């Protein structure tokens, strides 16, 4: 049964199919019958076999070929297509039945579109071919036609004429008819002209069929070389066959290529002027165009340039004798222009690659731009071109000129284009400006900088070049006519201005005026762009030392500060002056507000960086106030404008920039963590929003809420800023459904602080002496739960924190400790001199808090400052702990200080969106600062005081005696007078000086409590006279005693450089050394003097009674200590050479003889050393002789 059913079903299908086929056949037969009845041709198949191509050479050949009366229809059709005789094509296609005509038309379009090499076709040809269709165009025709159109426009910007023509309407395209408009749109879209297509309606289909195998061109046989005249004569021979004719033409062309330019021009002019042989003339000029087109596909770029030049000469020669408006010259000149266009586009495409580097030049050859420019269609040639081709040529020529060295030649073309094609002219004008600016960039290239660094003693002329470039830019802009000037994009103008500037130099008002005219002449949008750019550059580029280094300005950090200061001044002054002329420009007001805000930040941190404490905070507040005023003015100006605005024109910028300026968020997202946000300022923003007229307030608050909610959702708020940002935003908007997530977060963050807070507490009494230092403990007080969950707070006391990532330990540098120290110093700087900040050991951990402990630490009971009511501490008596952080050693600046201000530490938390940094504050502590004239500073707590006294008697001989005292204590070491009984000391003091100021060595945290361990040392200089006077056998010394019995005291004395153990009493000197250092008693001096006088008198008398026998003069020669031949000979030589001894001649001879004898006996060969007694006798004899001679004299 199933089989029967299936057979029946198939049979039905077959029957239906047969019925359908027979119906179609019947329809065809009917149409054919109808056609035959109308007299239309059916033999379309004959022509469908033709391969339609239209390469440039073919086009030239077809245009210049003489009409062949004997040619068949196929040949004629092909020649009409190749020569662009579309009217004939159209007439021919009309002979056929509509379907046949459509098929043949499609065949022509497809063959031309998919030909390889590509067909040569112009935009007007495409329109004409489309119009040649005997029926309305369908998709099969539109596809190839789109391809042809894309080929024809060649990426040129110039489509104005084409569009205008399509909008006017042609036979088959555009115009008023909706279908034809749709077809035109689809044609344009298919040619990738989407923008243009939008004016008609955009089709969705793009047809991109494959390419067809190109026909191989025949290689002509070149005959032997002959003269120009001979060849010309041969060509004029009507009997010459086609093949030899082609060979003659080739030979003529070769002659033209190698001949002198003047000769070529002369010959071509002669040929063009020859009215008798117009066919040959056509052939020759067509052959030149044909060869130029063929050369355009060769890789020999020199040959291409030569062909281009020859083509130009040919057209120039033609112009002198013939009107190009007539056919075939009109088509010929268009095709030649197309040749130029192909070459020009190729050079434009390759030139940037060629330019990239010296190495790439060999890889990217092209016809030089100057050659392309030189042989471009101009004058009568340009005028003879189709309008669209004309525009394309002009645009392309302008582009080529803009790539060349002398871009100023482009200006006339741009100014001419303004009248016909505004958008294209605008693009070219902006491109011209950009190119001009790039050419006038005064900055040094990387290559130059590398070379410069080798020899950095040169002066870089960037600034001078900048001045010249800016001057030229100003002159250029002034020289432009008004329509052209209006074409220039303001962004492009600012870029050009920037390009002409050195990267390291600021903008000045003088430069702005020089380039853009007076401030009155500068438009709002241009001024806004300039100010914004100045602001950006001041905040980044101009303050970057690396930029200055690269520009070789040799500016130091302080020079850069000065430069940026000047930049801010110039920018602010210029903007303020401009605003005086346009006070209602709210955008400019907001931008200037941001600029002033940046300046305030910069000046503040400049003072921080240079260590110039000065009055930086006051200055910062003043500048911030200026910025906030400007924001407020901008918001007011905007509010005045709001009634005129539609809802979709509402802008949040005035309030957003105000809000960001208030929070200290700079333009680039940088965050100033120190910036305090006051409720008053937040209220001003809220009020400004609420005061917006006509219901706009709700819309703006909604916009604000949406901005905040979006930032939360996108997690765009910096962790450091989250708390401040959200709490302020919620305050501005109030309770809004949109901002509900922010409210929740604020509550959540506040709740975190119920279990942790910063605590400061004084070490000792709150009565402080202005001259004395005092200590403050800084700790985190928290629950044990938080301590457990956070893993401890030791990391906030470290700059580097280890972290394990994928099994590897890496060191991060969040600089917690530095940031904490900076925050402490910044907060305290206005009130105290910070002597030292001693951080606790990060590993010391937390300690439990017990009632009655040192300082009376207790869990925080008050709400933290600046927090809502939700931030009350946990009520339950959970375990509280204290993590000591630091010990501050402070000294009050003056008596007006009445509190230790609120301090903050930033702690990291993590919520669902990631990290959030919440500042945890402390409560201020009240203190009472005493009159500086008070007797003495109030002692600070100190236990376990230990003293080490070292006596230094090494310079006792010079009457100097010192004691070095080193004291340590748990707490702060008291003053020396409170440690030692110096007033009752037996030795008088000369001077007491601090050797080392009070130093807190360590912040101890342990079971015995929390206390600092401090150290201090002094040098006591003593007057040792009382010890030295009258000392005989030893000098004893006793150290001063401690004031307190519980003070541990150790005694030392110096032994060379080493202190050694000693007792409270120590012997400084004993024995014989005492005499060297001791001072005699004056009575002993007097007695001694009298004794000496008596002894001297007695001696004098004794000498008077018995004169001395011995002579007072020392002996001239002494007996040798060791008697050797050497010593004796030396003695004798000395006697011999001495003029003091008056030896007579005989004695001298004897002496010489004795010397000689002794020398000979002792030193001569076989000589022996004389016995010692002989040497003794000889020496004594001559000493005796010498003495007697001397006595006699």
């Amino acid at each position, binding site marked *: 049964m199933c089989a029967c059913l299936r057979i029946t079903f198939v049979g039905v299908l077959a029957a239906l199919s047969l019925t359908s086929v027979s119906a179609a056949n019947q329809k065809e037969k009917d149409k054919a019958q109808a056609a035959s009845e109308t007299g239309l041709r059916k033999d379309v198949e004959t022509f469908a076999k033709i391969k339609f191509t239209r390469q440039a050479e073919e086009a030239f050949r077809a245009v210049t070929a003489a009409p062949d009366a004997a040619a068949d229809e196929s040949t004629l059709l092909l020649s009409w297509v190749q020569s662009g005789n579309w009217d004939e094509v159209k007439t021919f296609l009309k002979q056929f039945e509509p379907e046949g005509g459509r098929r043949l038309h499609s065949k022509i379009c497809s063959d031309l579109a998919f030909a390889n090499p590509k067909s040569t076709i112009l935009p007007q040809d495409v329109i004409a071919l489309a119009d040649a269709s005997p029926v309305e165009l369908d998709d099969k025709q539109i596809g190839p036609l789109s391809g042809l159109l894309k080929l024809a426009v060649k990426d040129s910007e110039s489509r104005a004429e084409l569009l205008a023509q399509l909008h006017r309407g042609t036979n088959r395209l555009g115009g008023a008819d909706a279908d034809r408009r749709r077809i035109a749109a689809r044609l344009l879209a298919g040619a990738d002209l989407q923008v243009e297509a939008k004016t008609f309606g955009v089709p969705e289909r793009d047809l991109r069929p494959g390419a067809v195998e190109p026909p191989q061109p025949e290689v002509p046989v070149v005959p032997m070389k002959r003269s120009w005249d001979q060849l010309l004569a041969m060509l004029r021979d009507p009997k010459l066959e086609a093949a030899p004719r082609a060979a003659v033409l080739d030979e003529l062309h070769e002659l033209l290529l190698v001949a002198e330019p003047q000769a070529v021009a002369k010959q071509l002019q002669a040929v063009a002027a020859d009215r008798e042989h117009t066919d040959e003339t056509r052939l020759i000029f067509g052959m030149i165009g044909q060869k130029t087109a063929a050369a355009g596909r060769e890789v020999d770029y020199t040959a291409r340039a030569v062909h281009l030049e020859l083509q130009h000469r040919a057209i120039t020669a033609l112009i002198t004798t013939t009107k190009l408006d007539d056919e075939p010259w009109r088509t010929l000149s268009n095709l030649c222009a197309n040749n130029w266009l192909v070459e020009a586009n190729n050079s434009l495409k390759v030139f940037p690659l060629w330019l990239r580097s010296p190495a790439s030049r060999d890889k990217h050859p092209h016809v030089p731009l100057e050659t392309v420019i030189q042989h471009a269609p101009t004058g009568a040639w340009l005028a003879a071109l189709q309008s669209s081709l004309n525009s394309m040529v002009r645009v392309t020529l302008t582009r080529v000129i803009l790539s060349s060295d002398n871009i100023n030649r482009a200006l006339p073309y741009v100014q001419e284009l303004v009248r016909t094609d505004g958008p294209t002219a605008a693009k070219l004008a902006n491109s011209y400006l950009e190119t001009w600016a790039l050419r006038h960039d005064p900055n040094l290239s990387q290559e130059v900088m590398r070379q410069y660094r080798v020899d950095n003693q040169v002066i870089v002329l960037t600034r001078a070049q900048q001045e010249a470039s800016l001057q030229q830019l100003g002159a250029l802009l002034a020289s432009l006519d008004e329509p052209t000037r209006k074409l220039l994009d303001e962004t492009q103008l600012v870029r050009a201005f920037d390009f002409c500037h050195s990267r390291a130099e600021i903008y000045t008002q003088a430069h702005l005026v020089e380039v853009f005219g007076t401030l009155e002449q500068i438009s709002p949008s241009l001024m806004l762009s300039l100010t914004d750019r100045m602001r950006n550059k001041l905040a980044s580029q101009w303050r970057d030392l690396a930029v200055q280094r690269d520009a070789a300005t040799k500016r130091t950090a302080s020079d850069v500060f000065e430069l940026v200061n000047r930049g801010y001044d110039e920018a602010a002054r210029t903007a303020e002056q401009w605003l005086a002329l346009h006070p209602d420009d709210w955008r400019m007001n907001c931008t200037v507000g941001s600029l002033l805000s940046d300046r305030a930040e910069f000046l503040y941190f400049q003072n921080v960086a240079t260590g110039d404490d000065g009055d930086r905070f006051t200055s910062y507040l003043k500048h911030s106030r200026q910025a906030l005023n400007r924001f407020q003015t901008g918001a007011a100006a905007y509010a005045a404008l709001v009634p005129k605005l539609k809802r979709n024109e509402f802008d949040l910028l005035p309030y957003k920039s105000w809000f960001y300026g208030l929070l200290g968020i700079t333009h680039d997202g940088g965050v100033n963590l120190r910036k305090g946000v006051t409720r008053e300022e937040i209220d001003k923003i809220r009020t400004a929003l609420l005061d917006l007229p006509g219901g706009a307030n709700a819309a703006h608050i909604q916009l604000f809420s949406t901005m905040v909610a979006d930032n939360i959702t996108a997690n765009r708020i910096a962790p450091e800023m989250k708390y401040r940002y959200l709490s302020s935003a919620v305050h501005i908007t109030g309770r809004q459904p949109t901002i509900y997530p922010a409210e929740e977060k604020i509550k959540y963050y506040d709740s975190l602080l119920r279990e942790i807070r910063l605590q400061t507490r004084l070490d000792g009494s709150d009565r402080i002496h202005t001259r004395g230092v005092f200590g403050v403990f800084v700790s985190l007080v928290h629950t044990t739960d938080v301590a457990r969950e956070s893993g401890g707070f030791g990391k906030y006391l470290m700059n580097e924190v280890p972290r394990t990532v994928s099994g590897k330990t890496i060191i991060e540098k969040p600089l917690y400790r530095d940031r904490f120290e900076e925050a402490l110093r910044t907060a305290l700087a206005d009130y105290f001199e910070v002597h030292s900040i001693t951080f606790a050991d990060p590993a010391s951990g937390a300690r439990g808090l017990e009632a009655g402990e040192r300082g009376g630490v207790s869990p925080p009971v008050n709400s933290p400052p600046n927090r809502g009511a939700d931030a009350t501490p946990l009520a339950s008596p959970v375990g509280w702990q204290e993590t000591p952080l630091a010990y501050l050693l402070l000294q009050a600046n003056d008596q007006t200080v009445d509190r230790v201000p609120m301090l903050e530490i930033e702690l990291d938390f993590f919520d669902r969106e990631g990290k959030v940094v919440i500042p945890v504050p402390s409560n201020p502590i009240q203190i009472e600062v005493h009159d500086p004239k008070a007797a003495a500073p109030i002692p600070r707590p100190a236990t376990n005081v230990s003293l080490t006294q070292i006596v230094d008697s090494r310079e006792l001989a010079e009457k100097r005696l010192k004691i070095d005292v080193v004291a340590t204590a748990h707490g702060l070491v008291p003053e020396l007078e409170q440690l030692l009984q110096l007033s009752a000391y037996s030795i008088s003091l000369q001077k007491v000086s601090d050797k080392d100021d009070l130093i807190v060595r360590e912040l101890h945290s342990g079971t015995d409590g929390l206390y600092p361990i401090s150290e201090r040392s002094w040098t006591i200089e003593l007057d040792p006279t009382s010890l030295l006077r009258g000392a005989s056998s030893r000098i004893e010394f006793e150290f001063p005693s401690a004031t307190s019995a519980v003070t541990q005291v150790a005694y030392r004395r110096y032994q060379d450089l080493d202190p050694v153990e000693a007792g409270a009493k120590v012997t400084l000197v004993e024995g014989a050394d005492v005499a060297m250092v001791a001072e005699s008693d004056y009575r002993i001096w007097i007695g001694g003097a009298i004794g000496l006088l008596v002894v001297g008198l007695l001696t004098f008398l004794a000498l008077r009674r018995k004169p001395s026998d011995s002579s007072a003069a020392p002996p001239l020669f002494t007996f040798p200590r060791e008697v050797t031949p050497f010593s004796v000979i*030396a003695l004798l*030589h000395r006697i011999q050479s001495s003029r003091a001894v008056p030896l007579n001649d005989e004695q001298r001879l004897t002496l010489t003889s004795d010397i000689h004898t002794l*020398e000979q006996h*002792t*030193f001569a060969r076989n*000589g022996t050393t004389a016995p010692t007694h002989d040497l003794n006798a000889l020496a004594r004899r001559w000493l005796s002789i010498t003495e007697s001679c001397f006595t006699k004299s």
Partner: protein
Amino acid sequence: MTVLKTNLIRDIRTRVAGVVVGQDVVVERILVALLTGGHLLLEGVPGLAKTLLVNAVAKTIGIGFGRVQFTIDMLPSDVLGSEILDQATHQFRIHKGPVFTNLLLADEINRAAPKVQGCLLEAMQERKVTLGGKTFLLPAPFLVIATQNPIEQAGTFELPEAQLDRFMLCHRLHYPTADEEKDIYRRQLNMGLRRQEDGGAVPKSAFDMIEGQPVCGISDLVEMMEQVQTIHVSEAFTEHVLRMVRRTREHPALEVGCSPRAGLALVQAARARAFLHDRDYVVPEDLFSLAEDIVLHRIRMTYESVARGVSLRDVLEEIMREV
């Protein structure tokens, strides 16, 4: 007793004295150096006839003489020679420098860079030079007499102790006495003019006085050198030299004392002096006379001694008196 050829020495001295006034001691030192194969460093201000003296001695003895004026831009090849490419034959050939002579006067040696000083002193020590991979022996006898100007210090490179030690003697020249200087003037006044081939004339200088045949040749010199080697040195003398040398190493005022080379130089120079004084044995006088020239440039005082103002001469005198 060996018959010494001291008559030749007398002739040499007479000939040199005819050219150079005074400076007998310097002539004696030059001869000592020649006879012992040592080298001599002359220190003195310009204008003391150092170059003239050496030139006169060289021409009197009839040995090869070369002179190099040292400057800061000199290269070792300027002294030693180099291998150069002969353009005619396209082959490398050796160009021997001025060091290839018997008597080389290295004028102002402290003006040359240490590299040049080093190469010359190496040649002095080894008496051979390597050029282009080949080693060439220097002529024998080979004597370098170097001069240095102690006044000018700018642009000079002081010779280090190790290199000074290569010089057997370092003699400090002094100004001539008044009589000698008067004699010098008188001689110059009587010299007259020297006519030149081009018809011009220049005043004669002391160099023009060096004329005539040499009084002896290299063979005579070698023979004299052999005789010097036969001069007797007694045990007492050697002992004394040893004590003196060792004392320099222990003296508290000295940082660097004498090397054994100094002791050898003392003994050898004493021999030569004895020869010059027509003795065949050395006597203490030889040591006393030569000690200053042989010892002083080899020792260096401690910083403390220099600070106290003690001079090297004082220290040497003290040592000689002690031993």
